């Protein structure tokens, strides 16, 4: 069943075997100041890496002999950065979108821009399908390991289902259009609800049919128990054995698979709901998004949320996280960015809203392409200057970002068992003169400053 196939692809990432087979490649980073992000910072600590995993982080860890030791005295080590919205490998396009479109199909695995982005310490990014319109489709989580095999590059397919609410094609997005977008998404989900019901009904009928079929087969094997009577019975016809089947059960007709409704239906699955990301800028768009989440019990995350800080309390109460960005925008502001301010992340965090910072390098915000993701650290610094502490800013682009992508079990902080995504800096993360010395992704060095 197609739905199952997609689900398996999802689980394969999370349920990764905790301990990779101990390969001979053991690396030890010694003597650095370590911002684990999940716990307190460790001065002159050590990190042990075995294969793709971090095996130990701490003050004085015994380094097994034969391990290659990298001396990080005087250096600062932070987790690999996570960009909650980038356009690496897929770029942008104005073609119309649809729920079943998959960013995985838009991959160009040979695009080399990832090298500049990983050189700045970004090791994991989320990518939306590059199109325009209300329903955009399924996003993908990408690990910057430099592989050109699309299957390995896409660490998790169908990571979220993206919608855009209230962003007009032209440079205007009137209130009616925002209401219209809300109605469109609502009707899509209603259709998906029906689709789920019919497929559930089919499953139930199929199960019943199986039972009846087994019973019918048994019946066929038994000899006829009541031979036909010679004289026409005057009494009413012999009482039929209630359990006995009168005719062969019919196999229920399997409903035709429809990729569009399947994608939508997974967001309505109470057991393991597919994350829904709605890009909303104005306060009324955000309200429509919350209304949708409430009506269909969606697992909702707001993207960009330019004016979200004006309704921070409502978002906090509804426990709906916000992926803040683009912190840096250029040129004349388009209508959806008129309320843009670099204080948004700080105000939301203060009101208790779960926040992460993404680069969102869209041309609508004046960015020329995916290479902007190499300045994720700068974007977090600017957000910090308006009220976030440095720790909050660093978390917003590591563990908090990983949490809102649902991959905090594997990346986002320096803890034993997590993937070995490590950035070695020659100074404090947000200081002016700090440069990236080395970036390790999945235990392999992807960048080293000459």
């Amino acid at each position, binding site marked *: 069943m197609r739905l199952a196939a997609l689900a398996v692809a999802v689980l394969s990432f999370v349920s990764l075997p905790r301990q990779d087979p101990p390969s001979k490649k053991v690396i030890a980073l010694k003597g650095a100041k370590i911002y684990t992000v999940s716990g307190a910072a460790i001065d002159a600590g050590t990190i042990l890496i075995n294969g793709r995993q971090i095996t130990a982080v701490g003050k004085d860890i015994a380094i097994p002999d034969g391990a290659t030791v990298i001396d990080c005295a005087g250096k600062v080590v932070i987790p690999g950065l996570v960009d909650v919205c980038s356009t690496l490998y897929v770029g942008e396009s104005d073609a119309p979108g649809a729920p079943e479109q998959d960013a995985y199909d838009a991959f160009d695995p040979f695009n080399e821009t990832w090298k*500049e982005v990983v050189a700045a310490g970004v090791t994991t990014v989320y990518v939306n399908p590059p199109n325009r319109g209300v329903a955009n489709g399924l996003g993908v989580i990408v690990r910057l390991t430099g592989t050109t095999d699309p299957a390995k590059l896409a660490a998790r397919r169908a990571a979220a289902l993206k919608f855009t609410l209230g962003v007009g094609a032209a440079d205007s997005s009137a209130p009616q259009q925002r209401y219209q977008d809300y109605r469109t998404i609502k009707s899509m989900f209603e259709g998906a609800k029906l689709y789920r019901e019919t497929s559930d009904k089919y499953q139930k009928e199929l199960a019943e049919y199986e039972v009846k079929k087994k019973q019918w087969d048994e019946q066929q094997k038994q000899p006829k128990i009541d031979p036909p009577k010679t004289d026409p019975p005057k009494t009413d016809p012999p009482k039929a054995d209630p359990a006995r089947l009168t005719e062969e059960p019919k196999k229920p007709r399997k409903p035709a698979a429809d990729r569009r409704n399947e994608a939508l239906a997974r967001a309505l699955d109470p057991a393991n709901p597919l994350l829904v990301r709605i890009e909303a800028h104005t306060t009324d768009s955000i309200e429509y998004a919350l209304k949708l989440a409430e009506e269909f019990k969606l697992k909702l995350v707001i993207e960009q949320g330019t004016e979200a800080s004006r309704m921070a309390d409502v978002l906090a109460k509804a426990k709906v996280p916000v992926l803040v960005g683009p912190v*840096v925008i*250029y*040129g*004349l502001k388009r209508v959806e960015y008129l309320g843009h301010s670099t204080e948004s992340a700080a105000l939301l965090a203060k009101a208790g809203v779960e926040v992460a910072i993404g*680069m969102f*390098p869209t041309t609508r915000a*004046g*960015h*020329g*392409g*995916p*290479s*902007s993701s*190499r*300045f994720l650290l*700068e974007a977090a*610094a*600017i957000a*910090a*200057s*308006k009220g976030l502490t*440095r720790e909050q*800013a660093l978390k917003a682009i590591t563990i908090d970002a990983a949490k809102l992508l649902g991959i905090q079990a594997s990346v986002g902080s320096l803890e034993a068992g997590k993937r070995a995504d490590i950035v070695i800096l020659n100074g404090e993360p*947000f*200081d*002016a*003169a700090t*440069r990236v010395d080395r970036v390790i992704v999945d235990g392999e060095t992807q960048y080293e400053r000459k």
Partner: protein
Amino acid sequence: MKYLAFAVLLLAPQAQGDVIAIKGGKFLTVANGDLEDAVILIQNGKISKIGKDVTIPAGAKVIELPKGSVVTPGFIDAHSYLASAFEVEESTESVTPDVKAIEAFSSDHPDVRAALSSGVTMVAIAPGSGNLVGGRMGVLRLNGRRYDQMIVKDAAATKLSFSNEALRSDREPTSRQGAMTLLRRLLKTKPIDGIVFLHAAAADDIQRAIEIATSFKLRAVLVHADGAGEAIDAIKAARLPVAFGPIFASDKREKLEAPGKLAKAGISIAFVSDAPATSESQLRLAAAIAMKHGLDRDTALRALTMAPAEMLGLSDRVGSLEAGKDADLVIYSGDPLSLTSDVETVIVEGRISFQKPKK
């Protein structure tokens, strides 16, 4: 609490001759290094004294800065269309030498307030690069007062454009060969005196700009110079300063490494915003990105203060914290080149023009 009192004091109309003293924090003077626990005295809109052993006269109003604060000269943007976008090109013909760009400036535009609050105290408004000879650039001080009181120089320099934006199919010149011939003919008959800003982005545009600058002995400044990385030796030979920018986050690495290379070759560089292409508040981001690609710290700070002042011929009045200069200065919460610090207070001509609201 102390801050509140201090703010009320300064806003009151000042009698001529009152002395204000700023103490504590760190002063980045740009002219002669950084000063710790020193004092600045301000009188009649000018810096009267600055130094470690400056005694504060009686009756002076003293400002004690919180620990970690940093004071810098006001930032200067040497090439911008702040609050005058789309009005700065007289496109009926390509040569309009007498047009004044600052006449397109509207002082009540919200961007002006945003620029001031981000620590930029002086801006040069330029004509667009759509004309071969764009016209006169003017310099304004963002002191929050009336338009005519903001004018520092109404014709500080002339703007020429070597980019293909100046070529149109429906008027002369339509090609670069036509543009160069027209320009040579013009400069032969009517030489331009004073400073000339040459808009040139690509490497071969820079080559042509240098050729015109040297053959007609212009006091020239190269603007944008994205492709400067490839023409370092030619720029060095012609000893032309470079007003570099605007820098976008998605620019090629080659362009981002150009400031570092120019600085190593001893060429004076300034960062420009080309507002509204990038906002004035992103001048600091441009400096931070350039430092990430090989530019040293001192040149980065100079590129926001003294270098643009020299390019506009105002280095005697602004660009550094020195006695006798105009009292344009900005107080930051920390190192201004580290993006986590923010502007706390902006003082222009000895008066507070912006104060960060305390929440």
